[in-house]
């Protein structure tokens, strides 16, 4: 059985882009690529939870970050992932001008569209990683 790719969203609580990162991770892991991905909580990973570390160590991982500080990518980089693929909501929104995401717990319609666009980009990364065959 193929190992699932770890998906780690930042889930920042201060801004809508962090919320969009979190929602994108759910869309990716539950709707778009449920057989190929698994969400791993950033806080568990960074605090050294053994099970979370096992999900990441030596494998491909996708970090979905809301802001330029890239906390999820940094956390993954320190957790033994073989390759960290970055998806940045702040870049995705530049490619979807006109979206005005609002809300944190309850994203507005534009926030959900942004999350979906982010998840679509992440799904392509997952497909590419699996096509390369480097993720057995």
């Amino acid at each position, binding site marked *: 059985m193929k190992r699932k790719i770890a998906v780690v*969203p*930042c*889930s*920042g*609580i*201060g801004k809508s882009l*962090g919320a969009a990162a*979190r*929602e994108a*991770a*759910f869309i990716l892991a*539950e709707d778009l690529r449920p057989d190929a991905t698994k*969400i*791993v*909580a*950033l*806080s*568990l990973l*960074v*605090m050294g*939870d053994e099970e979370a570390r096992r999900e990441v160590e030596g494998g491909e991982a996708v970090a979905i970050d809301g802001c330029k*500080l*890239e*906390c*999820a990518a*940094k*956390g993954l980089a320190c957790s033994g992932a073989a390759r960290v693929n970055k998806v940045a909501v702040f870049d995705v929104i530049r490619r979807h001008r006109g979206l005005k995401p609002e809300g*944190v*717990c309850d994203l507005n319609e534009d926030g959900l569209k942004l999350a979906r666009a982010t998840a679509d980009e992440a799904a392509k990364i997952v497909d590419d990683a699996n096509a390369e065959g480097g993720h057995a």
Partner: protein
Amino acid sequence: MPDLPRKKVGLISCSGEELPEGTVTRRAVRKVLETLRPDDTVTLCLPLFLAGGEGERSFARFYPTIAIDGCDKRCAARATEKYSAKPAASIVVTDIAKERGCGAIGTARRLNAEGLRLADEVAGKIVEETDRLLKKKPKGSVRGSDRGKS
């Protein structure tokens, strides 16, 4: 008289994506910040805190914090203590859910009605702790905090 910064309480939620209780922490904290105690609280971003955000860590060194965790792994409380100072209060959602006899609360992605009620309960608990830390008299009943007591 110097213009001293107003004392606020920092709220740090785990936001764990693997359990619905992580989503409860997030919703409860935002409710306190946006509605219940907007003048008395700030949120500290746990991912930033973990990634070395000096602003977040400094705040938690000098101001009281409340860690709100979804489960007994207590990532938010342990991270706060490890990188700044012991939180002034620590709330664990699974403990509150057990006390209240909560049933299924939905998923991490979407809380059900029970999950939303639990988030209100947790928000009420955060308010109690905030008022205690700021030595404020209770401002009357907080929506959600009385629910389920009868």
